[in-house]
């Protein structure tokens, strides 16, 4: 993603400018990843902030020989997300489907808004029913906007495997959405 990222990470341990470059490269992706998973702006902001604060604090623990910086950073993000889900479960909270249609305002007519809200609510319900690994891959692809190769690095899978999982997951989502429409 970044040219000579390894050298940049090395420099970021002491040089604020280098850390800022890493931040600019990854912050929007991390934010969109959380936003995709949680559909809650406030929680996405809190978790994004937590990830970068942890990353800054723990940058000296990053070992490039063990994997890429993206994999390390998204490892922190995944842990933060798991913690957040656990907290939500303990409190008995769920993400509201009303909040799960943030794009509704983009549609022009009330009918279109309603249709989009319904579509997004159905999609939300299908997404949350997916196994965790599939949800992660979909969020990394469509939320963080990663290539299959990057997802493979982050998830410790082969690139081909990621492509196949994505294809099958989207097909599964489509089938479930169709079933819901027929009900």
């Amino acid at each position: 993603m970044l040219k000579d990222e390894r050298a940049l990470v090395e420099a970021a341990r002491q040089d604020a400018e280098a850390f800022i470059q890493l931040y600019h490269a990854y912050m929007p992706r991390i934010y969109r990843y959380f936003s995709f998973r949680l559909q809650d702006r406030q929680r996405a902001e809190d978790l994004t902030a937590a990830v970068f604060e942890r990353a800054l604090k723990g940058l000296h623990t990053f070992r490039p020989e063990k994997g890429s910086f993206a994999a390390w950073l998204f490892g922190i993000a995944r842990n933060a997300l798991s913690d957040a889900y656990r907290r939500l479960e303990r409190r008995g909270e769920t993400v509201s489907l009303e909040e799960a249609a943030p794009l509704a305002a983009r549609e022009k007519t009330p009918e279109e808004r309603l249709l989009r809200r319904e579509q997004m609510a159905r999609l939300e319900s299908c997404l949350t029913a997916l196994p965790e690994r599939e949800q992660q891959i979909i969020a990394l692809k469509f939320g963080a906007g990663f290539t299959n190769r990057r997802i493979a690095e982050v998830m410790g899978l082969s690139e081909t495997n990621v492509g196949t999982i994505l294809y099958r997951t989207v097909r599964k989502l489509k089938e479930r959405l169709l079933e819901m429409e027929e009900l």
Partner: protein
Amino acid sequence: MRADERDRDRETPRWESEKVRIFSEYVDRLMEERGEVPEELGGMMTVAAWLAERGEEPEPPFTRRLEDSLHQQWTAQHGAPRAPRRGWWPWPRFGRARWRALAAALAALLLLGSVSLLSPRMRSVVARTVEDGIEIVLERASVREMKPQRQWELPPSEIPTYASVREAQERVDFHIREPAYLPPGLRLEGVQVADGSAVLVGYRREREGQGIELLYISQSPVMEGEDVSIGCVGKIQEIDLREHRAVWCRDRRRRNSLFWQDGDLLFGMYGTLPPEEMEAVAVSLFEE
């Protein structure tokens, strides 16, 4: 990495997903009409497009808060980062070795410039293009333009994109010509309109990823009172395009680029297709 490069990198994923969305919907509609794509794949493209729309962008107040907080944390861990340069001197402060290197580079540039301007071909190309109102800036030391110029670029994420030329046509005062000829497999990808006076039409080959982009810029108001330069790298070649002088060159991304002017419109074509095919497309624009 420069700030503009960084911003471009930050915008890329969103722009790509936007393009994926537009393209997928377009192909979906097109193929469903033709009945050539299995229904399953058609529906999958729609689901993929919904997914691509799902994530949101961070809002500026949040990014400012986060940056402030990280700055404080950095300061607590490492001490204050180096202060930004202040004072009247806007450039980095150079040591003696850098000044020497800079002086040597300037001398070399001046020498190269003088030698290249001796070439009648270069002089004639610059003179004729300036005469016609188009200024081609060559990124060779020899013929770098003298006037301050605005580099023409279409910032991708801020410009509305339309799925058809017809939709874009409603947003501009000039006629958007469509090529009478397109190489096999090339299909419309999307049309961008900037300022109501510049249009960028993208055509792409689905499987090989090859494509062309057609740029139309109206003289007014974009070019009025302002020089618009188009960056070319390396050699340029003049050709006759239906009795219009046109210039072939390569842009910064090493794509073939062809420019010409017809009336009040400046035309540009960038692409990864062979030059013969691009020229055939350009010629066909005169046939409409």
